Protein backbone atom coordinates (compact mmCIF):
# COMPACT_ATOMS: atom_id res chain seq x y z
CA UNK A 1 0.00 0.00 0.00
CA UNK A 2 1.40 3.37 -0.89
CA UNK A 3 2.35 5.83 1.81
CA UNK A 4 0.02 8.34 0.20
CA UNK A 5 -3.01 6.05 0.51
CA UNK A 6 -2.18 5.35 4.16
CA UNK A 7 -1.70 9.04 4.91
CA UNK A 8 -4.98 9.87 3.20
CA UNK A 9 -6.86 7.23 5.19
CA UNK A 10 -5.32 8.29 8.48
CA UNK A 11 -6.20 11.93 7.77
CA UNK A 12 -9.75 11.02 6.80
CA UNK A 13 -10.33 8.94 9.93
CA UNK A 14 -8.78 11.69 12.03
CA UNK A 15 -11.23 14.20 10.61
CA UNK A 16 -14.19 11.83 10.95
CA UNK A 17 -13.27 11.05 14.56
CA UNK A 18 -12.98 14.76 15.27
CA UNK A 19 -16.40 15.53 13.80
CA UNK A 20 -18.30 12.53 15.18
CA UNK A 21 -17.06 12.94 18.75
CA UNK A 22 -18.51 16.44 18.86
CA UNK A 23 -18.87 16.81 22.62
CA UNK A 24 -15.48 15.36 23.45
CA UNK A 25 -13.90 17.55 20.78
CA UNK A 26 -15.65 20.62 22.14
CA UNK A 27 -14.41 20.10 25.70
CA UNK A 28 -10.88 19.38 24.54
CA UNK A 29 -10.94 22.49 22.38
CA UNK A 30 -12.21 24.74 25.18
CA UNK A 31 -9.66 23.46 27.67
CA UNK A 32 -6.89 23.83 25.13
CA UNK A 33 -8.07 27.35 24.27
CA UNK A 34 -7.49 28.31 27.91
CA UNK A 35 -3.96 26.95 27.73
CA UNK A 36 -3.24 28.86 24.55
CA UNK A 37 -4.84 31.98 25.97
CA UNK A 38 -2.43 31.86 28.90
CA UNK A 39 0.49 31.43 26.51
CA UNK A 40 -0.62 34.33 24.28
CA UNK A 41 -1.32 36.48 27.35
CA UNK A 42 2.16 35.75 28.62
CA UNK A 43 3.71 36.96 25.35
CA UNK A 44 1.72 40.21 25.34
CA UNK A 45 2.19 40.88 29.05
CA UNK A 46 5.92 40.21 28.74
CA UNK A 47 6.22 42.62 25.82
CA UNK A 48 4.26 45.29 27.69
CA UNK A 49 6.50 45.01 30.74
CA UNK A 50 9.60 44.99 28.58
CA UNK A 51 8.44 48.15 26.84
CA UNK A 52 7.62 49.79 30.15
CA UNK A 53 11.07 49.02 31.48
CA UNK A 54 12.82 50.29 28.37
CA UNK A 55 10.70 53.40 28.35
CA UNK A 56 11.66 54.07 31.92
CA UNK A 57 15.34 53.58 31.17
CA UNK A 58 15.29 56.21 28.46
CA UNK A 59 13.80 58.65 30.97
CA UNK A 60 16.97 58.46 33.02
CA UNK A 61 19.33 61.33 32.39
CA UNK A 62 21.80 63.50 34.23
CA UNK A 63 21.04 67.19 34.33
CA UNK A 64 23.57 69.70 35.49
CA UNK A 65 22.05 72.96 36.69
CA UNK A 66 24.26 75.97 36.64
CA UNK A 67 24.09 78.93 38.97
CA UNK A 68 22.32 81.98 37.58
CA UNK A 69 25.64 83.77 37.39
CA UNK A 70 27.44 81.07 35.43
CA UNK A 71 29.02 82.43 32.26
CA UNK A 72 28.67 81.05 28.80
CA UNK A 73 32.33 80.11 28.63
CA UNK A 74 32.12 78.13 31.89
CA UNK A 75 29.16 76.19 30.52
CA UNK A 76 30.80 75.60 27.14
CA UNK A 77 33.99 74.41 28.76
CA UNK A 78 32.11 71.83 30.85
CA UNK A 79 30.12 70.79 27.82
CA UNK A 80 33.32 70.23 25.88
CA UNK A 81 34.96 68.19 28.59
CA UNK A 82 31.81 66.10 28.88
CA UNK A 83 31.68 65.41 25.14
CA UNK A 84 35.14 63.93 25.36
CA UNK A 85 33.86 61.26 27.77
CA UNK A 86 33.31 57.95 25.95
CA UNK A 87 30.09 57.20 27.89
CA UNK A 88 28.25 60.31 26.74
CA UNK A 89 25.82 59.95 23.86
CA UNK A 90 24.42 63.47 23.66
CA UNK A 91 24.34 66.74 25.51
CA UNK A 92 21.54 69.23 25.21
CA UNK A 93 22.06 72.79 26.28
CA UNK A 94 19.09 74.60 27.81
CA UNK A 95 19.71 78.32 28.23
CA UNK A 96 18.29 80.41 31.10
CA UNK A 97 15.67 81.87 28.77
CA UNK A 98 14.59 78.49 27.46
CA UNK A 99 14.33 77.20 31.01
CA UNK A 100 12.14 80.17 31.94
CA UNK A 101 9.92 79.72 28.90
CA UNK A 102 9.50 76.06 29.68
CA UNK A 103 8.73 76.86 33.30
CA UNK A 104 6.11 79.41 32.28
CA UNK A 105 4.57 77.03 29.83
CA UNK A 106 4.27 74.36 32.43
CA UNK A 107 2.74 76.65 35.03
CA UNK A 108 0.60 78.81 32.81
CA UNK A 109 -2.56 77.83 34.66
CA UNK A 110 -0.99 78.27 38.07
CA UNK A 111 -1.76 81.88 39.01
CA UNK A 112 0.15 81.83 42.28
CA UNK A 113 3.42 80.63 40.77
CA UNK A 114 3.15 83.05 37.90
CA UNK A 115 2.56 85.91 40.32
CA UNK A 116 5.56 84.93 42.40
CA UNK A 117 7.65 84.80 39.25
CA UNK A 118 6.49 88.26 38.24
CA UNK A 119 7.35 89.66 41.66
CA UNK A 120 10.87 88.32 41.41
CA UNK A 121 11.38 90.37 38.28
CA UNK A 122 14.61 88.57 37.48
CA UNK A 123 14.92 85.12 35.88
CA UNK A 124 15.58 82.81 38.87
CA UNK A 125 16.49 79.81 36.72
CA UNK A 126 19.95 78.78 35.72
CA UNK A 127 21.01 77.23 32.41
CA UNK A 128 21.38 73.47 32.31
CA UNK A 129 22.92 70.61 30.37
CA UNK A 130 20.89 67.45 29.82
CA UNK A 131 23.27 64.57 29.34
CA UNK A 132 22.32 61.20 27.90
CA UNK A 133 24.58 58.20 28.22
CA UNK A 134 25.01 55.52 25.60
CA UNK A 135 23.89 52.91 28.11
CA UNK A 136 21.79 53.36 31.28
CA UNK A 137 24.50 51.75 33.39
CA UNK A 138 26.92 54.54 32.50
CA UNK A 139 24.99 57.33 34.22
CA UNK A 140 26.66 56.51 37.47
CA UNK A 141 30.11 57.19 35.99
CA UNK A 142 29.00 60.47 34.40
CA UNK A 143 27.40 61.61 37.63
CA UNK A 144 30.61 60.81 39.52
CA UNK A 145 32.66 62.77 37.00
CA UNK A 146 30.37 65.78 37.46
CA UNK A 147 30.56 65.42 41.23
CA UNK A 148 34.32 65.49 41.05
CA UNK A 149 34.12 68.61 38.88
CA UNK A 150 31.87 70.33 41.39
CA UNK A 151 34.13 69.46 44.32
CA UNK A 152 37.28 70.44 42.43
CA UNK A 153 36.93 74.17 43.25
CA UNK A 154 37.90 75.18 39.74
CA UNK A 155 36.24 77.96 37.84
CA UNK A 156 33.93 75.53 36.05
CA UNK A 157 33.15 73.62 39.23
CA UNK A 158 31.97 76.78 40.94
CA UNK A 159 29.44 77.40 38.18
CA UNK A 160 27.62 74.13 38.91
CA UNK A 161 24.60 74.60 41.14
CA UNK A 162 23.39 71.02 41.43
CA UNK A 163 23.41 67.67 39.73
CA UNK A 164 20.07 65.89 39.77
CA UNK A 165 20.93 62.32 39.23
CA UNK A 166 20.76 60.55 42.55
CA UNK A 167 17.27 61.71 43.41
CA UNK A 168 16.00 60.64 40.01
CA UNK A 169 17.93 57.45 40.20
CA UNK A 170 16.41 56.09 43.39
CA UNK A 171 12.91 56.69 42.05
CA UNK A 172 13.74 55.02 38.76
CA UNK A 173 15.55 52.15 40.42
CA UNK A 174 12.53 51.49 42.62
CA UNK A 175 10.21 51.56 39.66
CA UNK A 176 12.44 49.29 37.57
CA UNK A 177 12.69 46.86 40.44
CA UNK A 178 8.90 46.94 40.73
CA UNK A 179 8.40 46.28 37.03
CA UNK A 180 11.07 43.63 37.04
CA UNK A 181 9.40 41.89 39.97
CA UNK A 182 5.96 42.06 38.45
CA UNK A 183 7.48 40.56 35.32
CA UNK A 184 8.90 37.71 37.33
CA UNK A 185 5.65 37.21 39.23
CA UNK A 186 3.75 37.41 35.94
CA UNK A 187 6.07 34.81 34.50
CA UNK A 188 5.64 32.55 37.53
CA UNK A 189 1.84 32.85 37.34
CA UNK A 190 1.93 32.18 33.61
CA UNK A 191 4.10 29.11 34.11
CA UNK A 192 1.82 27.87 36.89
CA UNK A 193 -1.35 28.34 34.84
CA UNK A 194 0.42 27.10 31.75
CA UNK A 195 1.45 23.85 33.40
CA UNK A 196 -1.94 23.42 35.07
CA UNK A 197 -3.91 23.93 31.86
CA UNK A 198 -1.50 21.76 29.88
CA UNK A 199 -2.12 18.95 32.37
CA UNK A 200 -5.87 19.47 32.17
CA UNK A 201 -5.77 19.54 28.37
CA UNK A 202 -3.64 16.41 28.36
CA UNK A 203 -6.01 14.70 30.73
CA UNK A 204 -9.06 15.69 28.67
CA UNK A 205 -7.52 14.16 25.58
CA UNK A 206 -6.47 11.13 27.59
CA UNK A 207 -10.05 10.65 28.74
CA UNK A 208 -11.28 11.03 25.18
CA UNK A 209 -8.90 8.30 24.13
CA UNK A 210 -9.69 6.20 27.20
CA UNK A 211 -13.26 5.97 25.95
CA UNK A 212 -11.83 4.62 22.71
CA UNK A 213 -9.58 2.02 24.31
CA UNK A 214 -11.73 -0.93 23.24
CA UNK A 215 -11.71 0.46 19.76
CA UNK A 216 -7.92 0.59 19.85
CA UNK A 217 -7.95 -3.00 21.06
CA UNK A 218 -10.01 -4.01 18.04
CA UNK A 219 -7.65 -2.14 15.72
CA UNK A 220 -4.73 -4.06 17.24
CA UNK A 221 -6.63 -7.25 16.73
CA UNK A 222 -7.30 -6.82 13.05
CA UNK A 223 -3.62 -6.16 12.56
CA UNK A 224 -3.50 -2.37 12.24
CA UNK A 225 0.02 -1.00 12.53
CA UNK A 226 0.77 1.29 15.48
CA UNK A 227 0.89 4.34 13.25
CA UNK A 228 -2.37 3.40 11.63
CA UNK A 229 -4.04 3.31 15.06
CA UNK A 230 -2.26 6.34 16.45
CA UNK A 231 -2.46 8.53 13.36
CA UNK A 232 -6.18 9.44 13.42
CA UNK A 233 -6.02 10.29 17.13
CA UNK A 234 -3.04 12.52 16.52
CA UNK A 235 -4.80 14.20 13.61
CA UNK A 236 -7.79 14.85 15.87
CA UNK A 237 -5.37 16.23 18.49
CA UNK A 238 -3.81 18.55 15.93
CA UNK A 239 -7.29 19.70 14.89
CA UNK A 240 -8.15 20.47 18.53
CA UNK A 241 -4.99 22.59 18.63
CA UNK A 242 -5.73 24.43 15.40
CA UNK A 243 -9.35 25.18 16.28
CA UNK A 244 -8.46 26.38 19.79
CA UNK A 245 -5.63 28.45 18.33
CA UNK A 246 -8.04 30.15 15.95
CA UNK A 247 -10.51 30.76 18.78
CA UNK A 248 -7.80 32.38 20.90
CA UNK A 249 -6.41 34.55 18.09
CA UNK A 250 -9.89 35.75 17.10
CA UNK A 251 -10.96 36.34 20.71
CA UNK A 252 -7.81 38.34 21.42
CA UNK A 253 -8.66 40.89 18.71
CA UNK A 254 -11.61 42.60 20.46
CA UNK A 255 -9.87 42.24 23.81
CA UNK A 256 -6.81 44.03 22.46
CA UNK A 257 -8.97 46.74 20.83
CA UNK A 258 -10.65 47.26 24.16
CA UNK A 259 -7.43 47.31 26.17
CA UNK A 260 -5.44 49.37 23.66
CA UNK A 261 -6.20 52.93 24.82
CA UNK A 262 -5.96 51.99 28.49
CA UNK A 263 -2.62 50.33 28.02
CA UNK A 264 -1.29 53.35 26.17
CA UNK A 265 -2.27 55.62 29.03
CA UNK A 266 -0.81 53.30 31.62
CA UNK A 267 2.41 52.32 29.83
CA UNK A 268 2.91 55.68 28.07
CA UNK A 269 4.22 54.48 24.71
CA UNK A 270 2.98 50.87 24.58
CA UNK A 271 -0.35 50.04 22.99
CA UNK A 272 -1.28 46.37 23.31
CA UNK A 273 -3.48 46.50 20.22
CA UNK A 274 -0.70 47.92 18.05
CA UNK A 275 1.61 45.33 19.50
CA UNK A 276 -0.88 42.52 18.80
CA UNK A 277 -1.13 43.61 15.16
CA UNK A 278 2.60 44.13 14.65
CA UNK A 279 3.64 40.97 16.49
CA UNK A 280 0.81 38.89 15.01
CA UNK A 281 3.12 36.57 13.03
CA UNK A 282 5.00 35.71 16.23
CA UNK A 283 1.85 35.27 18.32
CA UNK A 284 0.26 33.23 15.54
CA UNK A 285 3.26 30.90 15.29
CA UNK A 286 3.58 30.42 19.04
CA UNK A 287 -0.14 29.90 19.68
CA UNK A 288 -0.69 27.59 16.72
CA UNK A 289 2.60 25.79 17.27
CA UNK A 290 1.83 25.18 20.94
CA UNK A 291 -1.71 24.05 20.12
CA UNK A 292 -0.63 21.62 17.44
CA UNK A 293 2.26 20.29 19.52
CA UNK A 294 0.14 19.90 22.64
CA UNK A 295 -2.67 18.16 20.76
CA UNK A 296 -0.40 15.80 18.85
CA UNK A 297 1.80 14.97 21.83
CA UNK A 298 -1.12 14.39 24.20
CA UNK A 299 -2.75 12.03 21.72
CA UNK A 300 0.51 10.26 21.03
CA UNK A 301 1.16 9.61 24.71
CA UNK A 302 -2.43 8.70 25.49
CA UNK A 303 -2.73 6.13 22.69
CA UNK A 304 0.63 4.58 23.48
CA UNK A 305 -0.75 2.87 26.58
CA UNK A 306 -3.29 0.90 24.59
CA UNK A 307 -1.07 -0.27 21.75
CA UNK A 308 -0.03 -3.87 21.94
Amino acid at each position, binding site marked *: *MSVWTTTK*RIARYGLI*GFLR*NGFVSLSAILIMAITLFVIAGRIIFGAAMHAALNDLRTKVDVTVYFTTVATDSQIQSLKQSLSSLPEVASIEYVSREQALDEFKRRHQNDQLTMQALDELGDNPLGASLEIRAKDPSQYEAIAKYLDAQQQSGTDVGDAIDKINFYKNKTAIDKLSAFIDNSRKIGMAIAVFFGVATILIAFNTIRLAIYT*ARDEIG*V*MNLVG*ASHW*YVRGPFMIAGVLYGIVSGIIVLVALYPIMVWMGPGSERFLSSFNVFTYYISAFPLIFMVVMGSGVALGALSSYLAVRRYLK
Partner: protein
Amino acid sequence: MIYFDKVSKVYTAGGPPAVADITLSIDPGEFVSIVGHSGAGKTTLLKMLFAEVLPSEGNVYFGSRDIATLKNGDLLQLRRNIGTIFQDFRLLPTKNIYENIAFALEVAGKDDEDIQADVPHVLELVGLADKIWNFPHELSGGEQQRVAIARAIVNQPDVLIADEPTGNLDPINTHDVVEILKKINDLGTTVLLTTHNKSVVDSIGRRVVTMDMGRIIRDDAQGRYVL
Protein backbone atom coordinates in the same frame (compact mmCIF):
# COMPACT_ATOMS: atom_id res chain seq x y z
CA MET B 1 -0.71 -25.78 10.56
CA ILE B 2 -1.28 -24.71 14.17
CA TYR B 3 0.78 -26.46 16.77
CA PHE B 4 0.87 -25.87 20.51
CA ASP B 5 4.01 -27.48 21.87
CA LYS B 6 3.95 -28.07 25.67
CA VAL B 7 2.46 -24.63 26.25
CA SER B 8 1.83 -23.23 29.74
CA LYS B 9 0.67 -19.80 30.81
CA VAL B 10 0.89 -18.34 34.31
CA TYR B 11 -0.58 -14.81 34.68
CA THR B 12 0.66 -14.07 38.20
CA ALA B 13 3.95 -15.49 39.36
CA GLY B 14 3.32 -18.34 41.79
CA GLY B 15 -0.37 -18.45 40.90
CA PRO B 16 -2.22 -21.32 39.22
CA PRO B 17 -1.55 -21.77 35.50
CA ALA B 18 -4.30 -20.62 33.11
CA VAL B 19 -3.19 -23.33 30.72
CA ALA B 20 -0.79 -26.11 31.64
CA ASP B 21 1.35 -28.23 29.38
CA ILE B 22 -0.92 -28.17 26.35
CA THR B 23 0.10 -30.00 23.23
CA LEU B 24 -2.38 -29.64 20.42
CA SER B 25 -2.16 -29.83 16.66
CA ILE B 26 -4.74 -28.46 14.28
CA ASP B 27 -4.72 -29.17 10.54
CA PRO B 28 -5.77 -26.77 7.79
CA GLY B 29 -9.50 -26.82 7.12
CA GLU B 30 -10.47 -28.37 10.46
CA PHE B 31 -13.43 -27.17 12.52
CA VAL B 32 -12.41 -27.52 16.15
CA SER B 33 -14.73 -26.76 19.06
CA ILE B 34 -12.98 -26.13 22.34
CA VAL B 35 -15.30 -26.61 25.28
CA GLY B 36 -14.95 -26.35 29.02
CA HIS B 37 -16.12 -24.44 32.07
CA SER B 38 -15.32 -20.77 32.56
CA GLY B 39 -11.68 -20.47 33.57
CA ALA B 40 -10.74 -23.73 31.89
CA GLY B 41 -8.19 -21.85 29.76
CA LYS B 42 -10.01 -21.76 26.41
CA THR B 43 -9.68 -18.04 25.80
CA THR B 44 -6.06 -17.95 26.93
CA LEU B 45 -5.29 -20.69 24.46
CA LEU B 46 -6.86 -18.73 21.60
CA LYS B 47 -5.21 -15.44 22.63
CA MET B 48 -1.82 -17.07 22.34
CA LEU B 49 -2.56 -17.74 18.70
CA PHE B 50 -2.64 -14.06 17.78
CA ALA B 51 -0.04 -13.11 20.39
CA GLU B 52 -2.28 -11.07 22.64
CA VAL B 53 -0.92 -13.38 25.32
CA LEU B 54 2.53 -14.97 25.13
CA PRO B 55 3.17 -18.40 26.65
CA SER B 56 5.20 -18.64 29.86
CA GLU B 57 6.56 -21.95 28.66
CA GLY B 58 6.51 -23.86 25.39
CA ASN B 59 5.96 -22.60 21.85
CA VAL B 60 3.05 -21.84 19.60
CA TYR B 61 3.63 -22.38 15.90
CA PHE B 62 1.59 -20.97 13.05
CA GLY B 63 2.78 -22.78 9.96
CA SER B 64 6.48 -23.16 10.57
CA ARG B 65 6.86 -19.95 12.52
CA ASP B 66 7.10 -19.60 16.29
CA ILE B 67 4.69 -16.78 17.17
CA ALA B 68 6.75 -15.56 20.13
CA THR B 69 9.69 -14.76 17.86
CA LEU B 70 7.72 -12.74 15.28
CA LYS B 71 8.80 -9.17 14.75
CA ASN B 72 6.25 -6.37 14.84
CA GLY B 73 5.57 -6.30 11.10
CA ASP B 74 5.25 -10.09 10.86
CA LEU B 75 2.96 -10.11 13.86
CA LEU B 76 0.62 -7.62 12.16
CA GLN B 77 0.71 -9.82 9.08
CA LEU B 78 -0.20 -12.82 11.22
CA ARG B 79 -3.12 -11.01 12.83
CA ARG B 80 -4.43 -10.06 9.40
CA ASN B 81 -4.31 -13.73 8.54
CA ILE B 82 -6.44 -14.70 11.55
CA GLY B 83 -10.03 -13.54 11.72
CA THR B 84 -11.45 -13.11 15.22
CA ILE B 85 -14.95 -12.83 16.60
CA PHE B 86 -15.97 -12.48 20.24
CA GLN B 87 -18.95 -12.75 22.50
CA ASP B 88 -19.09 -8.93 22.78
CA PHE B 89 -18.77 -8.37 19.00
CA ARG B 90 -16.09 -5.66 19.37
CA LEU B 91 -17.18 -3.48 16.49
CA LEU B 92 -15.87 0.07 16.24
CA PRO B 93 -18.78 2.09 17.66
CA THR B 94 -17.88 5.35 15.91
CA LYS B 95 -17.71 3.75 12.49
CA ASN B 96 -20.65 2.57 10.45
CA ILE B 97 -20.93 -1.00 9.20
CA TYR B 98 -19.25 -0.24 5.90
CA GLU B 99 -16.33 1.44 7.65
CA ASN B 100 -16.03 -1.31 10.24
CA ILE B 101 -15.43 -3.87 7.54
CA ALA B 102 -13.47 -1.55 5.30
CA PHE B 103 -11.13 -0.91 8.22
CA ALA B 104 -9.90 -4.51 8.23
CA LEU B 105 -9.28 -4.27 4.49
CA GLU B 106 -7.52 -0.91 4.74
CA VAL B 107 -5.27 -2.26 7.46
CA ALA B 108 -4.36 -5.13 5.16
CA GLY B 109 -3.43 -2.60 2.47
CA LYS B 110 -6.25 -3.17 -0.02
CA ASP B 111 -6.89 -0.35 -2.43
CA ASP B 112 -10.12 1.62 -2.52
CA GLU B 113 -11.69 -0.14 -5.53
CA ASP B 114 -11.24 -3.57 -3.95
CA ILE B 115 -12.69 -2.32 -0.67
CA GLN B 116 -15.73 -0.86 -2.41
CA ALA B 117 -16.32 -4.19 -4.11
CA ASP B 118 -15.53 -6.53 -1.18
CA VAL B 119 -17.54 -4.91 1.61
CA PRO B 120 -21.02 -5.24 0.03
CA HIS B 121 -20.12 -8.71 -1.11
CA VAL B 122 -19.20 -10.00 2.33
CA LEU B 123 -22.22 -8.28 3.90
CA GLU B 124 -24.40 -10.14 1.43
CA LEU B 125 -22.77 -13.36 2.57
CA VAL B 126 -23.89 -12.75 6.17
CA GLY B 127 -27.27 -11.39 5.05
CA LEU B 128 -26.83 -7.74 6.06
CA ALA B 129 -26.50 -5.95 2.74
CA ASP B 130 -29.29 -3.54 3.70
CA LYS B 131 -27.55 -2.37 6.92
CA ILE B 132 -24.38 -1.16 5.27
CA TRP B 133 -24.71 2.50 6.36
CA ASN B 134 -26.03 1.83 9.87
CA PHE B 135 -23.97 2.21 13.01
CA PRO B 136 -23.40 -0.80 15.31
CA HIS B 137 -25.72 0.50 18.04
CA GLU B 138 -28.58 0.52 15.53
CA LEU B 139 -28.25 -3.24 15.01
CA SER B 140 -29.46 -6.20 17.10
CA GLY B 141 -26.97 -8.48 18.82
CA GLY B 142 -27.30 -11.15 16.15
CA GLU B 143 -26.78 -8.60 13.41
CA GLN B 144 -23.75 -7.15 15.14
CA GLN B 145 -22.22 -10.60 15.45
CA ARG B 146 -22.81 -11.17 11.75
CA VAL B 147 -21.03 -7.90 11.01
CA ALA B 148 -18.15 -9.08 13.20
CA ILE B 149 -18.04 -12.33 11.21
CA ALA B 150 -18.07 -10.37 7.96
CA ARG B 151 -15.15 -8.30 9.21
CA ALA B 152 -13.29 -11.42 10.34
CA ILE B 153 -13.56 -13.18 7.00
CA VAL B 154 -13.33 -10.29 4.56
CA ASN B 155 -9.55 -10.65 4.32
CA GLN B 156 -9.99 -14.36 3.57
CA PRO B 157 -7.94 -15.47 6.55
CA ASP B 158 -6.55 -18.98 6.90
CA VAL B 159 -7.96 -19.26 10.42
CA LEU B 160 -11.13 -17.94 12.03
CA ILE B 161 -11.15 -17.77 15.82
CA ALA B 162 -14.60 -17.56 17.37
CA ASP B 163 -14.44 -17.01 21.14
CA GLU B 164 -17.91 -17.66 22.58
CA PRO B 165 -19.55 -16.05 19.53
CA THR B 166 -23.05 -17.13 20.54
CA GLY B 167 -22.77 -16.25 24.23
CA ASN B 168 -24.98 -13.17 23.90
CA LEU B 169 -27.39 -14.47 21.29
CA ASP B 170 -30.82 -16.08 21.36
CA PRO B 171 -31.27 -19.61 19.92
CA ILE B 172 -32.30 -18.42 16.46
CA ASN B 173 -29.36 -16.06 16.08
CA THR B 174 -27.12 -18.74 17.57
CA HIS B 175 -28.24 -21.14 14.90
CA ASP B 176 -27.62 -18.54 12.16
CA VAL B 177 -24.11 -17.80 13.40
CA VAL B 178 -23.22 -21.50 13.63
CA GLU B 179 -24.50 -22.04 10.10
CA ILE B 180 -22.36 -19.17 8.83
CA LEU B 181 -19.32 -20.61 10.61
CA LYS B 182 -19.94 -23.98 9.02
CA LYS B 183 -20.25 -22.34 5.62
CA ILE B 184 -16.96 -20.52 6.12
CA ASN B 185 -15.32 -23.79 7.14
CA ASP B 186 -16.71 -25.48 4.04
CA LEU B 187 -15.00 -22.81 1.96
CA GLY B 188 -11.67 -23.97 3.41
CA THR B 189 -11.05 -21.74 6.42
CA THR B 190 -9.88 -23.40 9.63
CA VAL B 191 -12.34 -22.54 12.41
CA LEU B 192 -11.55 -22.59 16.13
CA LEU B 193 -14.65 -22.18 18.24
CA THR B 194 -14.97 -21.97 22.01
CA THR B 195 -18.38 -22.30 23.54
CA HIS B 196 -20.42 -23.28 26.58
CA ASN B 197 -23.36 -24.18 24.46
CA LYS B 198 -23.99 -27.93 24.37
CA SER B 199 -26.48 -27.84 21.53
CA VAL B 200 -24.09 -25.81 19.38
CA VAL B 201 -21.30 -28.35 19.81
CA ASP B 202 -23.58 -31.30 19.29
CA SER B 203 -25.08 -29.80 16.15
CA ILE B 204 -21.69 -29.24 14.55
CA GLY B 205 -20.53 -32.83 14.96
CA ARG B 206 -16.84 -32.20 14.31
CA ARG B 207 -13.70 -32.41 16.42
CA VAL B 208 -14.20 -31.42 20.07
CA VAL B 209 -11.37 -30.59 22.48
CA THR B 210 -12.48 -30.52 26.12
CA MET B 211 -10.48 -28.50 28.64
CA ASP B 212 -10.55 -28.43 32.40
CA MET B 213 -8.31 -26.50 34.81
CA GLY B 214 -5.97 -25.49 32.02
CA ARG B 215 -5.49 -28.99 30.65
CA ILE B 216 -6.93 -30.95 27.74
CA ILE B 217 -8.95 -33.83 29.14
CA ARG B 218 -10.58 -35.10 25.92
CA ASP B 219 -9.94 -34.74 22.24
CA ASP B 220 -12.56 -36.47 20.07
CA ALA B 221 -12.58 -36.43 16.28
CA GLN B 222 -16.37 -36.54 16.10
CA GLY B 223 -17.13 -35.29 19.53
CA ARG B 224 -20.03 -34.19 21.66
CA TYR B 225 -20.24 -31.85 24.58
CA VAL B 226 -19.35 -34.03 27.55
CA LEU B 227 -18.64 -32.40 30.89
